[in-house]
């Protein structure tokens, strides 16, 4: 019966109910989208790193796993690494950050193809001239690029020579020497990839390199990809914490407003319930159930809206942001929404409980 009363109350004021549900949904969507983008972007980076086919990665001293470095390492290091025992192959890349999340990667296509097995071109093919660039399918879709199109990047005009299947190294690749020249950083690299002659030798090579190259962050690719997680990236973890905090406050304010006005609007009804013997606990239970239902509906709508943001990102900025569906965050986001909502109903609930029945019954 109390559930019937809850449903009829919510159904009686559909606009307020819909607005409350939507506001809670936005809160849930905000959390799930942020978490999804964080996971998606890190996973996409890890996937592309794995696609290189290397076993070990060497980064410049003082860099972290997410720091995009220009090219502070000498390319002579590649020769040095190649000469190490059990190293089958080594190749270097230079990275020039662009605006937003984009970067342009310079590579030796022959070396890189040997290591990774080569790009799978969906359109066009490899570089034929110095001004040629190849891009992955997501970047091409985001910028609406096709083979032969011209594009201006880092004050240089490039021609799209090929569009390749995503999942290897980077989204935009050009010749290493051309990028180094444009960066006025000839013979310098941002990263070195190493392939062992046998998987059994990876740990041995790693130890050898770490001993001979002190100060250089050197990871196995397995280590590197496992470090690409939210818990390993302190700044991202903090950022998510802040957004969740904001979401809880939004949920609190929304439900506070909704339930406060509900209690005011229903002053007389609360008086009626008290007159017929409803206890303070009953009144509070009624408001809590309404809030809980709003939160659950808001969570469900929020989850559905997350698919909408995912679709939007896939179609609007496929190369910049990748959003994953992180299922195990659904109950967490729902819990956060419910917590914010329950905090929001405390004050209106107390107001309702303390309402004088005779005054409430004479309320117009």
């Amino acid at each position, binding site marked *: *019966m*109390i559930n*019937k*009363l809850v449903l*009829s*109350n919510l*159904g*009686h004021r559909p606009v307020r109910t819909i607005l409350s549900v939507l506001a809670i949904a936005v809160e849930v969507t905000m959390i799930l989208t942020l978490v999804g983008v964080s996971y998606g972007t890190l996973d996409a980076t890890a996937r592309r790193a794995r696609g290189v086919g290397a076993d070990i990665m060497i980064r410049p001293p003082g860099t972290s796993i997410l720091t995009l470095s220009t090219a502070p390492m000498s390319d002579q290091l590649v020769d040095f690494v190649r000469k190490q025992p059990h190293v089958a192959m080594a190749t270097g890349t230079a990275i020039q950050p662009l605006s937003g999340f984009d970067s342009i990667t310079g590579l030796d296509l022959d070396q890189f193809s040997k290591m990774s097995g080569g790009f799978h071109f969906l359109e066009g093919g490899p570089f034929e001239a110095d001004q040629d660039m190849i891009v992955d399918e997501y970047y091409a879709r985001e910028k609406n690029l096709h083979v032969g199109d011209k594009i201006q990047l880092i004050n240089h005009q490039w021609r799209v020579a090929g569009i390749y299947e995503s999942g290897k190294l980077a989204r935009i690749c050009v010749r290493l020497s051309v990028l180094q020249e444009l960066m006025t950083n000839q013979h310098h690299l941002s990263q070195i990839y190493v392939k062992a002659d046998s998987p059994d030798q990876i740990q041995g090579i790693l130890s050898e390199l770490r001993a001979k190259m002190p100060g250089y962050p050197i990871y196995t690719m397995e280590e590197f990809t496992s470090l690409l997680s939210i818990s390993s990236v302190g700044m991202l973890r903090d950022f998510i914490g802040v957004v969740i905090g904001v979401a809880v406050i939004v949920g609190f304010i929304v439900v506070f407003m909704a339930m406060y006005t509900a209690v005011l609007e229903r002053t*007389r*009804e609360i*008086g*009626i*319930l*008290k*007159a*017929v*013997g*409803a*206890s*303070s606990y*009953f009144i509070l239970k009624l408001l809590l159930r309404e809030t809980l239902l709003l939160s659950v509906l808001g969570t469900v709508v929020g989850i559905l809206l997350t698919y909408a943001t995912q679709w939007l990102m896939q179609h609007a900025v496929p190369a910049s942001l990748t959003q994953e569906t992180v299922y195990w965050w659904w109950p967490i986001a729902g819990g956060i929404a419910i917590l914010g909502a329950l905090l929001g109903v405390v004050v209106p609930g107390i107001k309702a409980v303390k309402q*004088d*029945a*005779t005054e409430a*019954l004479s309320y117009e």
Partner: protein
Amino acid sequence: MNETPMIETRELSKTYRAGDVDVHALAGANLEVLKGEFVSVVGASGSGKSTLFNILGTLTTPTSGTVRIDGRDLKDLSNAERAEFRKTMVGFVFQKYNLLPTLSAEDNIRIVQYIANRALEFTPEFEGILDILGIRDRMKHKPRALSGGQQQRVAIARALVNRPRILLADEPTGNLDSKNSAAVLGLLRDLNQRLGQTILMITHDQEAASYAGRSIHMRDGKIV
């Protein structure tokens, strides 16, 4: 009629503070209503009859004096005890019907059973009351789809569903036209005569008061 007083007040007073002024709504009201009586309390506006209604229904507390309902002293009841009292001992009929607008007539009655932890079924006896009230075919309608007279009948049914010791009615015909007023008052009299329901009705209307078995008058917070 049983001689046990169902309602008994002694030197009942209630003083409100309105701004800087003390308003003596009740000033030593003494009242006795026997079980099975239909009593009307008649008085002009401001005579204290609504305050008496609220105190008898435990919706508010007196400043001094005693109130006994069915032999139970209402003094010093906690909020929870007062709520418990309202569940079982009294049924209210208000001038403005006070039905929950979001529920159907039937659910307005059932919610009272639910609050009192009673089975959500209508007993044959209560079905009989619905027949007397003539609202059986309107039970699925929400209050806005009912006329004033029908809403007041639903309110009477709601007040009676838990078989309270007392039915308290505050100007039950105040919002009704003369035809509906006569019908509702006739029903109250019927319920009193056929079921022996104790009824205390507040009214300022002498004609309405004439339906009761006994009328008492209030003036300046006292029974006169």
